């Protein structure tokens, strides 16, 4: 495994590091990496993704390859989802949980072949996920290989993403790439680079994520920027990535999800396939099954809700949710993520609250640095792209 270059501060560098610096990227530490927070303006980058397209460097994320005749069975055991039932060419959002049902990471898993899967983990959890997968898969005929250091990940997201990516796609792959449905992927040549091209993303817009060899990332990035220029493509950083996923109601590990949370708390019980069976109908056990099954039918102690800010000040991660703006002492929950919404023009937040207060329309407040700001429970996602 080739280590990526680290700078004097000890942070890992993406293969695209110098591109970000040349583009005016403000580099900040993120999960042990130096990554661009923004290039110009958070708001401009966010709005560009909603209106045209943005290009993101996600090379810090983890890519772990599972291969072998029992790769699917191994993942059925290691993860909460039914991965062996995923057709070749499709992707699944899933989770890896601990013995007690707490979430270790949320993942996207791509089935790239009959006996091959690519597990994509958050940068902050890649080492932990790998350390869990290896022993969990040991009893199965499957190899677990960390390919993160050799894999670059570039996302192009927005209504113009299809035009941009297809304009660089090799003629033989063009129809297939243009026809990719949501949460599907295939191997294709884009800008002369052989990549896994997937119609997935973390923005709530149409778009693609391209997994390419790290050594070819710079050429691919530059060619996408050039091709995207006349479509309004801009480079977009971590700040825009966070405000976009928040508007789209997507959870962030470390905020909405953590080791003390089960998928059910976060409203993501659908990823837990308690009834997964083998082809001949035998029930499949998986790590965390017992506590998760118990949790599925029990009363939750808290539920994740969307909050629409009725004032001007945004609730932020960790702020208390209270019953009313006048009484900050009665705490009924806490904010997991919050920010002004560039698309909607008002503050938005996700929060865990007592189940009795989770009904849509419930009026609550958030203690924003000592002042009560009124909020209202709304459905997630806050934003849905026009179809």
């Amino acid at each position, binding site marked *: 495994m080739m280590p990526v270059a680290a700078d004097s501060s000890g942070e890992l560098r993406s293969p695209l590091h110098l591109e970000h610096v040349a583009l005016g990227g403000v580099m900040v530490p993120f999960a042990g990496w130096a990554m661009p927070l923004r290039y110009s303006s958070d708001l401009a980058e966010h709005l560009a993704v909603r209106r045209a397209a943005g290009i993101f460097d996600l090379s810090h994320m983890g890519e772990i390859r599972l291969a072998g005749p029992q790769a699917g069975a191994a993942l059925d055991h290691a993860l909460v989802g039914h991965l062996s039932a995923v057709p070749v060419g499709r992707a699944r959002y899933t989770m890896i949980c601990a013995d007690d049902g707490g979430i270790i990471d949320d993942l996207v898993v791509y089935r790239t072949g009959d006996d091959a899967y690519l597990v994509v983990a958050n940068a902050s959890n890649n080492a932990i996920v790998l350390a869990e997968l290896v022993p969990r898969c040991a009893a199965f005929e499957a190899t677990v290989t960390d390919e993160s250091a050799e894999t670059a990940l570039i996302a192009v997201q927005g209504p113009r993403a299809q035009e941009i990516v297809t304009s660089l796609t090799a003629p033989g792959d063009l129809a297939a790439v243009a026809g990719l449905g949501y949460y599907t992927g295939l191997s294709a040549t884009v800008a002369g680079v052989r990549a896994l091209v997937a119609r997935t993303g973390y923005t709530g817009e149409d778009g693609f994520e391209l997994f390419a060899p790290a050594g070819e990332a710079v050429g691919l990035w530059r060619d996408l920027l050039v091709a995207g220029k006349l479509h309004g493509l801009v480079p977009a950083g971590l700040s825009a990535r966070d*405000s976009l996923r928040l508007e789209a109601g997507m959870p962030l590990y470390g905020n909405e999800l953590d080791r003390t949370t089960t998928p059910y708390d976060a409203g993501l019980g659908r990823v837990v396939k308690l009834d997964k069976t083998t082809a001949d109908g035998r029930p499949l056990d998986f790590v965390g099954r017992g506590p998760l099954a118990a949790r599925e039918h029990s009363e939750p102690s808290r539920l994740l809700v969307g909050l629409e800010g009725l004032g001007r000040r945004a609730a932020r991660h960790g702020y208390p949710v209270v019953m009313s703006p006048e009484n900050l002492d009665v705490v009924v929950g806490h904010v997991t993520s919050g920010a002004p919404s560039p698309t909607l023009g008002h503050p938005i937040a996700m929060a865990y609250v007592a189940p009795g207060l989770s009904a849509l329309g419930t009026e609550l407040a958030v203690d924003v640095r000592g002042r009560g700001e009124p909020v209202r429970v709304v459905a997630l996602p806050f934003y849905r792209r026009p179809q």
Partner: protein
Amino acid sequence: MSTFPDDLQYTVEHEWLAAGDPVTFGITDTASEALGDIVYLEMPSVGAELTAGAVCGEIESTKSVSELFSPVSGTVVEVNQAAVDDPSLVNSDPYGAGWLLKATVTATGPLLTVAEYRAQTAG
């Protein structure tokens, strides 16, 4: 690229101060760039007492909240309502249309010359 007008004085907390009666102050280019897109200003009211070096307001951006420290002791006589209504003025014109407060002064806290402030931010 950050600019620092010669005819202003500065503080270590990245405010600028324009002499006069009343004085005018705001935040520098360095501060507004570091904050990113400013979305909300929490300002004191007209008539509020200011203490040099103490927090007198908040400047909130998409990603963070920063405290505003008063460079002077005195009384607020005017708040820039245009900036309160459109906080992006503080990003686009921090020394002009993005001014924050005007105040009468009873005492002034430690101030830096433009050369001293430039040296501090270069470090």
